[in-house]
């Protein structure tokens, strides 16, 4: 029998996971007077190990801030078996979640992203529209500290983010001018990066280190923007506490969770309401781990869709080489600008849906020698080393292409029958195959991105080789919808089967968009938690 621990009486809400969605929920619940406990399996990020400006920056950052939990193997991680997956999952298990190492590209989804079935006749519509979510985008952009420019012609008119955009820089200006000549869309990059001192954030100093722990405190990651606020307002955040399974009462309500502390001791944390914010792999893993005799297929899984419809965004990269010194090891990483020129479906292209492009720097000298994005067939080594190095270093720019993948039930997260984490909890197992639509989509966008960079003056363009380690965005595995037979949760994140269990992370996405997802994850969480707060009198809770 697991020991009861602290927090009597039990809190109103248990949140599992201290990433983006958990942070948004925790702050609002605390503001509304709820008593909240959050269980986070990892720890706070150690920014003393963020090395921008130090000679070993490039050498150590990739290992210290490794994005693949199987590579990092930190105490907060669990194994992800992915031998049957074309893409490997990337995540940060700790306070801040993926925002600790994300590129902070802050992309709202477009109106068509919420209406894929209605507009394109495929996949599913979301149970709400862009217009329903828009006020929440505006608010989370203020809460996080987003920079950008209102009036982007790829979105309906409305209020923009609170800070002006990051500089275009020389490389951005070149590409902007080229797109003007081509008649292609571009817009100053929206980023969760402070361009002025803003709340708890410092102003960006363009280390181009966003992906490896911002040493400046300028990138909006929720360990900096939200969790200090939440804990000051009374939220109890327990780090290095891993949930083993959810507790389910005889009435079918979830009563909290069983978790393992850093010493391996088991405890129960009870709560009236439980919210899963554990990402598109962690959340279905927990629901599947919570199977029992009455629910042999897992908790909240009468639809059979828990873990299915995994979407991870195939990722394309195209680099251009320029004669001009663009100083492109500095800047934001982050995006200087974005283009949504080819985002909307055009049936004549031979595939459905599209992708967003973000223009990025290319890093320092060690990055210039790496097989990604430069490709093993594009070697730098040997007699031409110094010429090639100088051609790449500071004289290159890169489009990162976020390609929409469509939901397929065969792409899924299950429990691994063999492997487990250090506490004996089964690992997650992925099965994910790229569809023909995705392959065509990525190839089309790579070709257009080459044209973009060539028009900007690149004398050579390189399409990065396909690599598996691009699964930044973990979406779709506890899909929301109106029909309990065809979805796991409703539009408020409430499980159809369990009225006091909620999912707020990217698991709920019916389709993946072709955007970096954090803006929509945050806006969804805010909309959902405010609905929960507003309807607190009607909310059933565990006894």
């Amino acid at each position, binding site marked *: 029998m697991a020991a009861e621990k602290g927090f009597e009486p039990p809190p109103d809400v248990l949140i599992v996971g201290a990433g983006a969605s958990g942070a948004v929920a925790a702050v609002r619940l605390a503001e509304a007077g709820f008593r909240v406990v959050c269980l986070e399996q990892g720890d706070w990020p150690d920014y003393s190990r963020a090395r921008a400006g130090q000679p070993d920056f*490039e050498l150590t950052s990739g290992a210290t801030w490794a994005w693949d939990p199987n590579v990092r193997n930190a105490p907060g991680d669990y194994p992800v078996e992915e031998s049957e997956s074309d893409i490997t999952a990337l995540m940060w298990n700790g306070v801040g979640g993926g925002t600790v190492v994300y590129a902070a590209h802050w992309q709202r989804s477009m109106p068509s992203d919420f209406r894929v079935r209605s507009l394109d006749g495929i996949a599913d519509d979301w149970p709400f529209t862009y217009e329903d979510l828009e006020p929440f985008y505006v608010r989370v952009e203020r809460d996080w500290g987003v920079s950008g420019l209102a009036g982007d012609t790829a979105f309906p008119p409305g209020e923009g983010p609170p800070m002006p*955009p990051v500089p275009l820089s020389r490389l951005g200006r070149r590409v902007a*001018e080229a797109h003007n000549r081509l008649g292609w869309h571009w817009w100053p990059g929206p980023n969760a990066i402070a361009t002025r001192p803003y709340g708890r954030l410092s102003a960006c100093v363009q280390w181009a280190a966003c992906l490896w722990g911002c040493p400046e405190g300028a990138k909006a990651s929720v360990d900096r923007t939200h969790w200090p606020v939440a804990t000051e307002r009374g939220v109890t955040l327990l780090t290095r506490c891993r949930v083993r399974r959810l507790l389910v009462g005889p009435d079918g309500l979830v009563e909290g969770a069983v978790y393992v502390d850093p010493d391996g001791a088991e405890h129960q944390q009870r709560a009236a309401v439980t919210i899963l914010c554990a990402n598109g792999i962690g959340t279905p893993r927990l629901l599947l781990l919570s199977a029992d005799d009455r629910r042999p297929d897992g908790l909240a899984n009468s639809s059979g869709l828990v873990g299915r419809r995994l979407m991870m965004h195939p990722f394309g990269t195209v680099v251009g080489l320029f004669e001009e010194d663009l100083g492109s090891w500095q800047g934001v990483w982050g995006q200087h600008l974005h283009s949504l020129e080819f985002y909307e479906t055009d049936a004549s292209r031979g595939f459905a849906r599209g992708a967003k492009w973000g223009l990025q720097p290319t890093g320092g000298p060690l990055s210039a020698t790496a097989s990604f994005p430069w490709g093993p067939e594009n070697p730098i080594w040997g007699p031409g080393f*110094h010429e090639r190095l100088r051609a790449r270093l500071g004289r290159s720019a890169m489009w990162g292409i976020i390609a929409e993948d469509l939901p397929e039930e065969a792409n899924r997260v299950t429990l691994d029958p063999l492997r487990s984490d250090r506490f004996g909890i089964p690992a997650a197992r992925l099965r994910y195959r790229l569809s023909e639509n995705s392959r065509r989509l990525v190839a089309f966008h790579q070709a257009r991105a080459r044209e973009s960079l060539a028009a900007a003056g690149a004398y050579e363009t390189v399409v990065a080789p396909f690599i598996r380690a691009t699964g930044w965005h973990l979406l779709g595995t506890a899909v929301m919808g109106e029909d309990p037979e065809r979805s796991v949760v409703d539009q408020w994140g409430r499980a159809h089967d369990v009225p006091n269990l909620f999912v707020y992370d990217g698991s709920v996405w019916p389709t993946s968009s072709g955007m970096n997802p954090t803006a929509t994850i945050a806006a969804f969480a805010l909309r959902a938690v405010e609905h929960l707060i507003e309807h607190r009198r009607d909310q059933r809770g565990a006894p």
Partner: protein
Amino acid sequence: MSREVSAEDRATLAALADVLIPAGQGAPSASEAGAAGPWLDEVLRLRPDLGEPLAAILAAARGAEPAAAVAGLQAEQPAAFDALAAVVAGAYFLHPEVSRAIGYPGQQRRPIVPEEPPDFEQDGLLASVLARGPIYRPTPGREP
């Protein structure tokens, strides 16, 4: 691999390293820059995870013709090749003279200085984007 790398292993590494990074354009070769000497030790201190793959590479390459050994790794063992490249280039770029020779001062603090007008407004840069008008498909029923 322990941090005490034998002289024989250093000699093997120096030969492989110079296949990857020969001298040129005023910059030293990898071995001349100490990529098998003090900067190797620094790499292994900073990245102990590279020690084991490096030891395996050097054991296999001992006595082999360096260019053939490098080519073999590149063709047949891409992960091992990447580890070798990370060690050699990682050590090479730690040397301050190399940084000077290639014109890389390291990442520097560059505060964003507000421009007036901001860069995206200079020379009417956004004018043609704005003139084109909306490019998104509206929510059905919410068309403007």
